[in-house]
């Protein structure tokens, strides 16, 4: 029965993958593809973030740093050394992991809110650094002369999402995953059974930065122009955490569910913002109270609300909620049998 379920799951995922791969060939409009790309990007970021944030329980509030850093690495390698794009993107991932090792080793010595704060600081730190560097173009940033079309970018980000999810699955099934999660459960106890926690936490952090670096690398070829304030975004750091917590951090699928739902909502809000705002303006006094209302504000308000509701009602995210339902169903069935 277990294997039946497993086969079903694999089949479903394969079919889904085939459908996703063929989407760009259906002549779908560009803006729809861009929604998919945003979903893939955030799925990739969140499922990677979860390696450290979910498995080891160290909530990194600075994962946008690796995205931004990767964007710069690939843009610089491509424009300055003439390296082919795929090589530049791969190196963006590798350099990003190296940066994470450097950041992670000292930061992972502190826990909880302290860790959240020090990691949060990495994004503004890198932003300021890149604003002041000569060869990265300072605040002006870099133009990337390349011509990947949107369907290609779509396939690249889809590929990164699949690979990062695969990495998460492999981690969950391996001894390394047991090491990571034991840290979340009880770090001191993990040490007393022989787990070198500082080494293994740093490893988790480095792995969690790899795909964000590559995603940033693709982003440069997608937008063809990057500057410090667009790629080093504190908001992105927070959204990564929010999406993952919303989906649930216990397993790889959680962050994917969370990011897929919330990014789609965000994009749809943007697309239909005109209509929604027209409706809202029928409300008495709406225009007086919110004279500068926009779709961005609408999404922020909504995300803030979701965050509050999730923390109160679904502390383990959608995954935890589904699990609870499943558990209650099983209980009912077994009690019905007696």
């Amino acid at each position, binding site marked *: 029965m277990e294997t039946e379920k497993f086969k079903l799951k694999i089949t479903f995922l394969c079919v889904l993958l085939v459908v996703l791969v063929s989407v760009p060939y259906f002549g779908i409009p560009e803006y729809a593809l861009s929604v998919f790309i945003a979903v893939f990007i955030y799925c990739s970021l969140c499922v990677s973030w979860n390696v450290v944030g979910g498995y080891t329980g160290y909530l990194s509030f600075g994962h946008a740093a690796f995205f931004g850093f990767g964007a710069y690495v690939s843009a610089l390698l491509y424009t300055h050394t003439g390296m082919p794009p795929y090589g530049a993107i791969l190196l963006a991932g590798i350099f990003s992991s190296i940066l994470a090792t450097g950041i992670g080793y000292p930061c992972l010595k502190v826990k909880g809110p302290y860790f959240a704060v020090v990691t949060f600081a990495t994004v503004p730190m890198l932003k300021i650094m890149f604003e002041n560097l000569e060869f990265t173009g300072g605040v002006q940033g870099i133009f990337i002369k390349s011509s990947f079309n949107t369907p290609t970018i779509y396939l690249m980000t889809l590929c990164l999402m699949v690979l990062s999810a695969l990495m998460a699955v492999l981690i969950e099934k391996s*001894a390394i995953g047991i090491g990571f999660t034991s840290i979340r459960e009880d770090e001191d106890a993990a040490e*007393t059974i022989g787990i070198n926690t500082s080494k293994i936490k740093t490893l988790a952090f480095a792995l969690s930065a790899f795909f964000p670096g590559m995603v940033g690398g693709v982003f440069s070829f997608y937008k063809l122009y990057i500057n410090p304030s667009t790629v080093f975004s504190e908001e992105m750091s927070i959204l990564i955490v929010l999406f993952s917590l919303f989906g649930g951090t216990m397993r790889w699928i959680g962050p994917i569910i969370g990011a897929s739902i919330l990014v789609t909502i965000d994009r749809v809000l943007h697309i239909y913002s005109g209509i929604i705002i027209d409706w809202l303006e029928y409300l008495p006094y709406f225009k007086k109270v919110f004279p500068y209302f926009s779709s961005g504000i609408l999404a922020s308000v909504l995300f803030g609300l979701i965050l509050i509701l999730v923390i109160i009602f679904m502390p383990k995210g959608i995954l935890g909620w589904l699990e609870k339902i499943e558990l209650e169903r099983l209980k009912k069935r077994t009690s019905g049998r007696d």
Partner: protein
Amino acid sequence: MLLEVRSVTKKFGGLIAISNFSFVLEKGIMTSLIGPNGAGKTTLFNIINGIYPPTSGSIIFDGKDITGLKPNKIARSGIGRTFQTPRLFNEFTTLKNVISAAIYGGGIRDIREAKKRGIELLDFVGLEKKKDVLAKNLLATEKKYLELARALAIRPKLLLLDELFAGLGESDTSNAINLLFKIKNDMGITIFMIEHNIKAVMKISEKVIVIHHGEKIAEGVPKDVAQNPEVIKAYLGEEYA
């Protein structure tokens, strides 16, 4: 000689929790550490297994100086422990708790092998039927057994047990005592335990060390220690001496 603690002192700010403490543990000799509440027993364990580095003094284990090493190194060099209040991986199943220790501390890299070892150990402590239950859902006494199994999974030479019998009923206590004898005789593991249950201490230990206010006040075979006036004074208070 398996473990030698050489004039170890531990200060927490102004508080001297352990003061110039020395003793040795011989291989295979079941030794107990007793003392009133707050005497410094758990602190001494925390120093031996590396959770706290000592303020001064040194610790020699199996011929090697382990002073100041991280707990994970000390664990892998062969010292296992349990905690006064169990510190399990609550969201793991019972089996996975033991597997994690078998992999990391026990050096079994293959997950299937680690699983086999885990089941053996759960069988040993009598928890094989609970292997798929989440650790948080175990009964209090089962948690104690699981911690014991997890500590054994690292293949220790020395096992530090912090109040293993606390909260166990009559039958569980005698069951646990049997396990300890098996651990000692069949697995060849030396046991050093903190114990409040004096009856159990007298019954199974070959040597007793008494700590009071962070100092060693007596050491010897159980019946000598029980008659030591310093010890009686420490346990019953000044006026009874």
